[in-house]
């Protein structure tokens, strides 16, 4: 029962080739993203002050990040005062070791999990499994992914790439190996599927004594943690077990409850397209006789302070994981999340993953280029992350770190020609001399264009020749394109 991993996935252009050719996947994605996009559009449209809210969200996050050291200390004090224990994890290794040690200390061999990006980022389930501890995902979509030994492909709807027929099959074939099996004769009716998941999960909620979660927000001045969700399964995990361990990125902080209020409006509308999400669970340390009696907060850095040091890139840390940028992105809609080869897919993944992991391997280096820079992500981002700006900034870093090669030579040659009008003119004349001799299918890198598109006809002469001729009183005027 191993969990899949993104490690060793191919870089975006190669992964995207298979994804774009998968007609079923493209159909599932178009339908799902289109629906969420439409809902978001309606609930954002109805607010007169959306742009002010968005600006407030941006400003609060920027202020928090500017004084993050101070707010983190406040949070630690508040959580400790409320009876929780705070642990600091510099990287994924440290975080995994802390959580594993805490679970072992309880003597339990099973944990229930609230849907969390941070625990996926550190691949916690695999680490727990290596120590003989089984982690049960309890978010419906995460359950589908886990049972299918699959990878999530979206923040909000991790199984967006699956349709209900596929889900029915996964439940019938895999549920029994993990606990309560699917009922006899389970079909693919959504209500039947939900009921099967409910029965399967109910046993986990009632029998498991340790829960692992993330958090959407951590309020520094009271030490309160906040989880927003739709199913109520998260609340089961946050209230029924005896021990709760929450892994939270250090950028999830907000200073106070009045700051939180802004995000309670921004997040549900941007994420599920609801005015308010069905379940908002807030807990502050431990309360005797009510809920988990042991609470651990693991604060995760894992590349975040490196990003914070980058003046352009740091805006990615404002992200509240709403997934509006995924749902609007024309690239994501055609490839799905797996092609990004990272826990964080879509436009935000393309700027977050290379910063958190460093621009090291082919996957990270390809991500900043996995965008046409159309700007739709920036427009819908509830905290105004200028994703195209960061993409270009990261592209510059990739280019700066690149050895000389055909692309660098071609770009240098293009600049040399374009730097001087005489050289540009000579190139234009050469192109016009060859007009008609351009083949329909170009060889080498040109094939990337001509495989699916015709090349434009080169004109008889460039515009500047027409202008020069005209200003000398020549033929100017009429000519064929």
């Amino acid at each position, binding site marked *: 029962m191993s969990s899949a991993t993104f490690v060793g996935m191919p870089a975006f252009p190669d992964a995207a080739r298979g994804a774009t050719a998968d007609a079923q996947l493209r159909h599932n994605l178009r339908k799902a993203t289109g629906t969420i996009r439409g809902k978001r559009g309606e609930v954002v449209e109805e607010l007169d002050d959306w742009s002010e809210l968005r600006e407030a969200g941006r400003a609060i996050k920027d202020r928090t990040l500017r004084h993050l050291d101070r707010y983190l200390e406040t949070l630690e004090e508040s959580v400790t005062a409320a009876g929780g224990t705070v642990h600091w994890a510099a990287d994924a290794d440290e975080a995994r070791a802390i959580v594993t040690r805490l679970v072992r200390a309880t003597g339990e061999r099973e944990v229930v999990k609230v849907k969390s990006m941070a625990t996926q980022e550190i691949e916690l389930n695999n680490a727990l499994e290596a120590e003989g501890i089984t982690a049960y995902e309890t978010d419906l979509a995460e359950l589908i992914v886990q049972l299918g030994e699959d990878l999530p492909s979206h923040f909000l709807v991790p199984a967006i790439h699956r349709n209900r027929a596929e889900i029915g099959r996964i439940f019938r074939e895999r549920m029994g190996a993990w606990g309560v099996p699917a009922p006899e004769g389970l079909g693919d009716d959504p209500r039947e599927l939900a009921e099967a998941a409910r029965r399967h999960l109910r046993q986990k909620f009632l029998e498991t004594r340790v829960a692992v979660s993330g958090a959407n927000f951590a309020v520094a001045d009271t030490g309160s943690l906040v989880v927003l969700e739709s199913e109520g399964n998260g609340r089961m995990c946050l209230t029924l077990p005896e021990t709760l361990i929450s892994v939270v990125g250090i950028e999830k902080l907000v200073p106070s409850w009045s700051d939180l209020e802004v995000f309670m409006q921004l997040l549900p509308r941007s994420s599920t397209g609801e005015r308010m999400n069905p379940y908002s669970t807030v807990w502050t340390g431990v309360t005797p006789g009510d809920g988990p009696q042991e609470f651990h907060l693991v604060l995760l850095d894992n590349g975040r302070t490196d990003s914070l040091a980058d003046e352009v890139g740091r805006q990615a840390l404002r992200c509240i994981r709403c997934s509006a940028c995924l749902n609007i992105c024309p*690239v994501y809609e*055609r490839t799905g999340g797996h092609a990004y080869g990272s826990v964080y897919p879509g436009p935000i993944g393309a700027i977050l993953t290379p910063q958190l992991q460093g621009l090291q391997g082919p996957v990270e280096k390809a991500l900043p280029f996995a965008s046409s820079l159309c700007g739709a992500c920036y427009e819908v981002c509830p905290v105004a992350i200028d994703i195209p700006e960061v993409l270009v900034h990261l592209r510059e870093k990739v280019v700066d770190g690149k050895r000389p090669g055909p692309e660098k030579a071609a770009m240098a040659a293009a600049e040399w020609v*374009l730097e001087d*009008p005489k050289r540009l003119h000579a*190139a234009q004349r050469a192109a016009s001399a060859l007009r008609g001799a351009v083949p329909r299918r170009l060889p080498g890198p040109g094939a990337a264009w001509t495989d699916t598109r015709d090349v434009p006809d080169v*004109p008889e002469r460039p515009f500047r020749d027409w202008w020069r001729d005209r200003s000398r009183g020549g033929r100017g005027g009429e000519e064929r394109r």
Partner: protein
Amino acid sequence: MRIALFVTCVNDTLYPGTGRAVVSLLERLGHEVVFSEEQTCCGQMHYNSGYRRDAQRLAVRFVRTFEDADAVVAPSGSCAAMIRDNYPRLGEHGSRLQRAASELAPRVYDLSELLVDVLGVTDVGAYFPHTVTYHPTCHGLRMLRLGDKPYRLLRNVRGLTLVDLPGAAECCGFGGTFAVKNPDVSAAMGSDKARNAASTGAEVLCAVDNSCLMHIGGTLSRERAGMRVVHLAEILASTEREPALA
């Protein structure tokens, strides 16, 4: 008004008809067009691909060529957006490029902005007896925020029937070097855009940017969709005496 034409390297080299259309349109409206042969390229491809220093050198040339102009028109939404949105943050903080670019940028216009906002005209006296659908382009829509300006200009063209393009706001998938770095995704987006365009039944797909039109037009032509792509300038320059698509 005296208007400096920045024809753009793509139009200069591949689509001179668009440049000629801008000249004929503005002169017909009683304005003077000047063209400096010192101009080359705005540097958008280099900037968007991560070659900042190359883009800076091209920006320096652009600013030097156009800094004395009262108004600069660029018949390319993405080039106008490159200059307006990106030039001011292209130079080092406090550099001459940053100062000069920030000073010049607000006087650089896309054709539809120049006509509607600066020259205050929405009926340019054009005649184009065809069914047209308009693709707003990403830079025109989200960076320049052209809004309804191109539509207002098109609605006033005599003989022209304007039909809505489904999924208009979505990117066509060109994206400069994106088209060759991620050819499969680019082609998938282009194919969807071409299908939406063809579904309108229009004869012509119009936009303010020949780069996008090269990609969509190349896809339409490969798919033998029987639909033409025409730059907005060429439709607005078209008259009964000198029709486009004659």
